[in-house]
């Protein structure tokens, strides 16, 4: 494609300058400042001179912080695995189904995308909280208090899975619809069992989108502050500790270090998954800049919004 001549832009680069300035001043500069804050100690709300790694050391030494770091990572990995296991077969069926079913499912999947993270956390309280609907049902059936899982790892995981579902299905469904159905039929006619076809034919072809979906899922779960805050009576996760260090400890340095750890984990999981996906995808990739079609796919990398 020939490059458009300069004058068909709107004043060329000039009109892009405000946005570039915005990104430099309000995105890159604050993030750099965050890193600088994280290598300084905060005493009585004031940054002390002298570089130190004590804030990062605290994440390893402090039992509470180490616990929430472990919880955060394990929870995100677990949620990613569960969501992929649940959504991959669903996305495959969806890709082979007619427009009516596909539109209906689209309508259903809009909900987890549209609701803010705090509302999704609240959904878990409505069902699994002390007076939750499921808790009340369990109590009515067994005669004892039960089902109050909202503030456990399971409750938090349920909320995370909820907002990961549309992201994973959105990421997988476009790729699943391009799968060649003949390959499955050939494998089946050669006597492969359905499970074997899935493991040896379908899943290898979906490796790249599966990895991409996993990256999005991980990054979203790692940064899910609103959801965790709503369910904050229970487990500690890292985003909660950031707010806690700042507002209850007045410790900007520690809060910054925790944010940097969180951001690195999220960026790392996205980058690793993207790189892995590219590696698998290379032979099949024809148009690298081709966007993934569909709103759900476009909104799929909704990393930071929970």
């Amino acid at each position, binding site marked *: 494609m020939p490059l458009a001549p300069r004058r068909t832009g709107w004043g060329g680069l000039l009109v892009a300058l405000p946005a570039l300035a915005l990104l430099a001043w309000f995105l890159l500069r604050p993030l750099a400042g965050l890193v600088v804050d994280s290598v300084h100690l905060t005493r009585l709300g004031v940054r002390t001179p002298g570089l130190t790694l004590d804030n990062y050391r605290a994440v390893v030494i402090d039992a509470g912080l180490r616990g929430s770091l472990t919880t955060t990572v394990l929870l995100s990995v677990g949620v990613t695995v569960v969501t992929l296991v649940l959504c991959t077969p669903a996305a495959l069926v969806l890709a082979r189904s007619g427009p009516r079913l596909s539109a209906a499912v689209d309508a259903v999947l809009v909900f*987890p995308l549209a609701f803010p993270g705090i509302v999704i956390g609240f959904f878990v309280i409505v069902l699994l909280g002390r007076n939750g609907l499921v808790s009340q049902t369990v109590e009515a059936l067994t005669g004892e208090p039960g089902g109050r899982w909202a503030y456990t790892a399971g409750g938090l995981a349920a909320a995370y899975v909820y907002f990961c579902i549309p992201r994973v299905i959105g990421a997988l469904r476009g790729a699943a619809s391009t799968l060649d159905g003949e390959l499955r039929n050939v494998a089946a006619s050669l006597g492969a069992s359905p499970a074997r076809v899935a493991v040896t034919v379908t899943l290898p072809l979906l490796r790249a989108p599966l990895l991409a979906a996993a990256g999005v899922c991980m990054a979203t779960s790692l940064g899910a502050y609103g959801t965790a805050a709503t369910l904050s009576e229970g487990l500690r996760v890292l985003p909660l500790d950031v707010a806690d260090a700042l507002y209850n400890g007045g410790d900007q340095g520690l809060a910054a270090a925790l944010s940097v750890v969180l951001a690195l984990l999220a960026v790392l999981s996205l980058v690793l998954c993207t790189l892995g996906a590219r590696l698998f995808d290379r032979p099949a990739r024809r148009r690298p800049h081709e966007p993934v079609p569909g709103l759900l796919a476009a909104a799929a990398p909704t*990393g930071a919004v929970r």
Partner: protein
Amino acid sequence: MTRRPGHREWVGQAALVVVSVVVLVPILGTVLVSVSPDASRGPLVGGVTADWYAMAWQLLGPKVGPTLGVTAAVLVGAVLVVLPLCHALARRLVPGGAVVRQVTMLPLAVPGVALGLALAASDPGLRSSGGLLVVGQLLIVVPFLVAGLVPPLADPDLVEAERVASTLGAGPTRRLLTVTLPAIRLPLAASLLIAAALSIGEFNLSFFVVPPAHQTAPFALYSAFTTQRLELGAAGSVLFGVALVPAAVTAALLARSSLSRKEHR
């Protein structure tokens, strides 16, 4: 096609049903709780009431104005600041365009908590006016605008049309109003609706930069959650859903129709 009703198909359909149930049951449950007089005695025990909605509206109502004000400012910023960047990126006029695109994706990868903390520390002076909140939410929506607008702006047909208009003597403003904007109106509307929905519900980043005196609706909703009245929180959530879901559905429809329009050509 001869399709034996195999085991795998069954697994997939069951998974699809499970996913739909998982998504819908909490919403239905929340609606049920929101109209119950006292959810601790059981849903709908003692009839149906709208009292919780009245109370939730008392909490959320005063926040509607400030929230929509922030959202409007974010959308203005999206059109005036981010859209030109998308156009320049699509025309490859930005030096280091690939790097710039990666930077525009940063707000997706970096958790909102981290970005919010960074903004609050770097520009505390802008917080009380609400300026920092607008800037922060604008950053949050940048990745969605770039993902939604750069591909349609890079459409070869549009590039060609702009060039023809230019050779016929149309100035930049005229090209913008008569060629570019009409060509991208569907993706632009979809992107702006997504941006509006994200802005209205934004909590993670906003938590650190919201002016304490002028909090937006999600914060009122959050305090409704912490009152321990399940029904009040449920009513507030339903009100929120009523505000957000139509925007999201419309965005989905617009994106769908702009896609199918492309396929028909």
